[in-house]
């Protein structure tokens, strides 16, 4: 994709935070699956089904070790971050929800980490975000002591790029006896995540933001919690015994994977994680940080570009507004130059209300981003300023 053109110009892809481009190895793995061992899993004794099953179960092991060496049975394959959170909301929270129960979220959460709790019947109360774009930890500590059922917090903000101090928050939550769900959608592609030490109880992310395919994501949960939760969806592969009177269920993780999963998607995600594992992640992080700092300077030099206040620990997100020009207009005019950025509320309406802005423009940095991409962005913004001059 990065070799293609957009609106006749070479593409400048700065929207990885929405969805990442895929290494060839990921596409190849999926095509190879469909061409050589396409079959359903867990049910056939013939070779293709066996290979599909081994590849699928192997992906669980790949993901388990990618996340710091957790147990493979703690990895549940879902469609993405959104489904993972809905699963926890419906299967962990709802069955034991009492009237007036509430979930502690933050002002910087993605809608995916707000609405599922509301749909499960809980109130959501936010930890405030400071003017510097960080979580107010004192407020978090105070709110944790007021008896929320759960702390649901984003590891890295998709709008600000802020990397939240999860270990610290998880320790506070543990003291308060509050379980913690972490939305890792924006974090896993940039940070090494070790769930054996992080302190979270649930962690989730989407494959498509981790250089993998659409349609697949991961929910990790502590085994005791997963085991105690009733199944959410029912169907094939998640049962032990079915009758019209009484049905019993398979052990975790199968209990949570009803029906035919996105087998090819899981195999693609496995390939993406292998690809990432073969990269020098420290070097990538350094590259991204260098570009992020350069990007800030380039934007500041345009004039009339107002960057959001964000902390220095950042996953490489540049979010800004342009004086006198609405974000959508900015993105449309940049699009004329083949530059792909995101404009809107980025599914964080409450954060935008906090910022007093209906919408912002976001450029996000990935391993394949080059300085030239950011220079193109700055040049594009100069043109936007001219149009609106």
């Amino acid at each position, binding site marked *: 994709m990065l070799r293609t053109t957009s609106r006749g110009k070479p593409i400048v892809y700065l929207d990885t935070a929405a969805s990442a481009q895929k290494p060839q190895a990921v596409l190849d793995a999926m095509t190879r699956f469909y061409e050589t061992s396409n079959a359903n899993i867990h049910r056939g004794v013939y070779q293709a089904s066996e290979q599909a099953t081994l590849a699928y179960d192997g992906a669980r092991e790949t993901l388990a070790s990618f996340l710091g060496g957790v147990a493979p049975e703690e990895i549940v394959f879902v469609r993405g971050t959104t489904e993972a959170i809905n699963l926890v909301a419906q299967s962990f929270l709802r069955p034991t929800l009492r009237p007036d129960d509430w979930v502690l979220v933050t002002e910087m959460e993605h809608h995916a980490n707000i609405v599922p709790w509301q749909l499960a019947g809980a109130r959501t109360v936010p930890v405030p975000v400071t003017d510097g774009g960080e979580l107010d930890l004192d407020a978090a500590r105070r709110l944790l002591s007021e008896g929320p059922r759960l702390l649901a917090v984003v590891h890295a903000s998709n709008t600000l790029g802020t990397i939240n101090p999860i270990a610290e928050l998880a320790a506070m939550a543990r003291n308060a006896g509050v379980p913690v769900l972490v939305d890792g959608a924006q974090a896993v592609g940039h940070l090494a995540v070790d769930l054996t030490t992080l302190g979270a109880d649930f962690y989730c992310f989407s494959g498509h933001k981790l250089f993998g395919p659409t349609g697949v994501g991961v929910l990790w949960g502590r085994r005791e919690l997963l085991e105690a939760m009733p199944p959410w969806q029912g169907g094939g592969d998640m049962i032990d015994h079915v009758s019209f009177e009484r049905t019993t269920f398979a052990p975790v993780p199968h209990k949570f994977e009803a029906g035919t999963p996105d087998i090819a998607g899981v195999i693609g995600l496995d390939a993406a994680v292998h690809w990432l594992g073969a990269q020098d992640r420290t070097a990538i992080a350094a590259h991204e940080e260098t570009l992020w700092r350069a990007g800030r300077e380039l934007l500041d030099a345009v004039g009339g570009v107002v960057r959001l206040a964000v902390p220095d620990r950042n996953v490489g997100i540049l979010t800004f507004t342009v004086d006198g*020009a*609405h*974000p*959508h*207009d900015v993105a*449309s*005019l940049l*699009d*004329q130059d083949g530059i792909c950025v995101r*404009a*809107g*509320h980025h599914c964080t*309406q409450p954060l*935008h209300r906090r910022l007093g802005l*209906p*919408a912002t423009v976001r450029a996000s940095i990935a391993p394949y981003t080059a300085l030239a991409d950011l220079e193109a962005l700055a040049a594009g913004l100069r043109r936007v300023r001219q*149009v*609106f001059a």
Partner: protein
Amino acid sequence: MATMDELYQSVIIEHDRSPRNFRRLEAPTHQADGRNPLCGDEVHLELRVDEEGRIAEVGFQGRGCAVSKASASMMTTALGGRTLPEALELADRFQALLTGKREADASLGKLKVFQGLAAYPMRVKCATMPWHALREALRIEL
């Protein structure tokens, strides 16, 4: 076909800067709120329909991109004096123009500059949003 830049420069920027009828009415007979949930843009639309059933006054407020603002602004001027069925018909014609289902013709007047937007389907919603609010408003008599 106009490029996006030309579209902006020809008309959108001008209406964005000096929107017509950007105000509340004294005695509206109809009103509605329009919203584009994907971008958070909002428009509040008010109309006054006179005894003869013709649109006497239109005002809008809100915040949005230049495209939606220009579209709302030009809509308010295009509606004056029309009956409600005429207004709805204009809304349909505008929608058809932007979704490429119809060519521009004289009946659209100045609105036809928006034709260039048909090539940018994600922005079409910005331009049609005030018109959706109009349809809504005509259903909600005060």
